[in-house]
């Protein structure tokens, strides 16, 4: 059973990572900074529990808030640009965060041993869960409570005016601006929310793996963060969840028996999936519970002659 609980933990933290990019994607922006916020959450929460003996729940929330604050501060300058420029600007930020943790050495003595980030060697012994007698199913439950809360909040937000505002900005900025929406406020708000969610995800991640180092939080992780919501579809939070199950459950874990071929299939199946379902596995139409009305399909684009 432990194996399946462990797997659920991986699904949980990756869903949080994906959801953090989902919020930002709703406003039409691709942010490669999510791995950076995830790293900030991981290091902050690890420091809180392993170095200062804090309880896990306040530590997770603290990590989320720290990430959110940094995301907000970065959002103002970064969101002056959009499209490809934003991709690279956020990529630069993410790499900067990673390199800062690469250079960060800050250790304190606890029980006769030094704990804390140790530069390139990483941050070892974030063992809050095993040391405090948490069984693996309890850890999994805790993670999924956070996932459920975040998903519920985003689901609820999607059905209120806030969701409509985000999607309006994502759909057509000029139109959104002309109906009086403050683009900067909307985008920075989404970025802050994304930072908070990524921070929570990162803090839980750090505690499930007990050791973190800068190398984990690179461009590849940032790519996966945006890949989940795009692959799953931006229609609702469940798209991200499905994509995480597809990638982590099927491609990574399910195909393990294929040995060396698994890694080859991994990329190929993503290509196939995007060709077959370009709007994501679940599509980009917002799900409405019990609603049979389908949104009329968007104006067909001018037919290309080819």
């Amino acid at each position, binding site marked *: 059973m432990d194996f399946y609980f462990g797997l659920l933990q991986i699904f949980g933290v990756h869903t949080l990572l994906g959801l953090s990019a989902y919020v930002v994607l709703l406003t039409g922006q691709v942010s490669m900074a999510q791995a950076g916020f995830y790293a900030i959450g991981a290091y902050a929460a690890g420091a809180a529990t392993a170095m200062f003996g804090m309880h896990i729940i306040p530590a997770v929330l603290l990590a989320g808030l720290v990430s959110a604050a940094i995301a907000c501060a970065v959002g103002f300058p970064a969101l002056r640009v959009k499209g490809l420029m934003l991709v690279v600007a956020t990529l630069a930020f993410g790499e900067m965060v990673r390199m800062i943790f690469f250079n960060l050495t800050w250790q304190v003595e606890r029980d006769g041993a030094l704990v804390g980030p140790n530069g390139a060697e990483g941050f070892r*012994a974030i063992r809050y869960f095993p040391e405090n007698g948490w069984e693996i199913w309890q850890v999994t439950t805790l993670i999924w409570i956070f996932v459920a809360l975040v998903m519920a909040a985003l689901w609820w937000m999607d059905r209120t005016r806030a969701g409509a505002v985000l999607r309006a900005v994502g759909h057509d900025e000029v139109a959104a601006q002309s109906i009086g929406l403050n683009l900067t406020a909307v985008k920075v708000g989404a970025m802050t929310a994304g930072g908070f969610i990524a921070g929570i995800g990162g803090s839980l991640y750090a505690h499930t793996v007990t050791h973190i180092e800068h190398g984990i939080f690179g461009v590849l992780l940032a790519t996966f963060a945006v890949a989940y919501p795009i692959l799953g579809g931006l229609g609702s939070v469940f798209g991200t969840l499905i994509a995480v199950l597809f990638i982590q459950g099927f491609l990574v874990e399910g195909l393990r028996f294929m040995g060396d071929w698994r890694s080859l299939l991994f990329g190929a199946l993503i290509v196939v999936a995007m060709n077959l379902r370009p709007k994501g596995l679940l599509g980009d139409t917002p799900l409405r519970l019990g609603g049979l009305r389908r949104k009329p399909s968007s104006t067909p684009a001018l037919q290309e002659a080819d």
Partner: protein
Amino acid sequence: MTLAKFLTVSTLALTVAAPALAEDKTISIAGFGAASGVVGIFGQNSGAAMSAAAEKINAEGGVTLADGSTAMIETTYYDDRCNAEEGISVLRRIATTDALVAVGPTCSNVAEPLFGILQAKVDDDGDTGLQFPVFTDVAIKGGLAGISEWVFRNTPSEAMMYDNLFAWIRETHPEAKTIYGGVEEDFAHSRATWYAVMKEAAIKHGFEVVGEAQWLLNDTNFSNQVRGMRRAEPDVVAISAHPFTTCGALREMARQKVEPEVLVGLTSSSSLETLSGCAAEAEGMIIPTSFAPVNDDAKFAADAVAAKGAALDLHSAAAWENFMILRDVINAAGIEGTADSRDADRRKIRDGLAALTEAEGLLGQNKRLPDGEAEKPYVFVGASDASWTVVHAPDS
């Protein structure tokens, strides 16, 4: 529905992991590590060494259980792609099978988190970490076995090897005074080996460190770093980096005509990779290694692994040795090998490994240390004419 199909297939694939009980008695030892990706070659070699070792053990009659019956060894290799999350997931999966002990992982950055999720001290009921014996073959970064009492390593002690290497250089090159280091800064193993091992050993044996050149794992330009080296005119240059940047730096050294008397390399570069990358520039580079085909046992093992299309080097040789050591441990521990005795058997193997003070290795007796680490016999190999040849074999 593609989506439904994906889900069904993945659910099916996940349930395959359920333990299969064997009728004829088998003892299962799992191997895991990176078998794909940039470092995949390590896992492929280890996996081949393990299955070759299992075949040898089975051909010699397998292992003896508590009731006097014999059982065959079977082994499966799991790929973790050198990723911490996957490594943890793989070990948890192995723990659900009837495997009694796991041999792995390849990467130090997987080993460190992985050992962290294991129970730190045995019989500590307050610690809910996983209780499963791990006997590491490849991940070499110093001091990791101390993280958990369930972890044992059969990786060579770099501290001891480099200490002796520099002592030997002092002896054979009495006129050499200065040393210059080259470090791949963002790789935990190379970094730790220069700062905590090579540098210390060099200073201890009277070399003066006249400078350090630093670069990153995927750097392609070394001219700045090597220029510093050229000005310092060192007698000895020690490069602690993986083959790709080792070769890059060596090329640049040749270009700038930095010709130290002695060139020292990192343990994990004593593989074919360095030679396939830059045999000409690596000529003369000396590396301590815990494996070379210098005696009959070692040659036999190397041939058996070569027959599987893989190579036996210091890493995969450890995988082979681990299986031989585990055979002796299993024979001595008196395990039952039934589904009900699984947890008890795992514990017996752990205790058996913990009780060892010496173990048989391919190059001679290995010393087992109380913290789960090993001190293995070693030789110094040098690159000459695109192959590694033994330049010095200390008698130990």
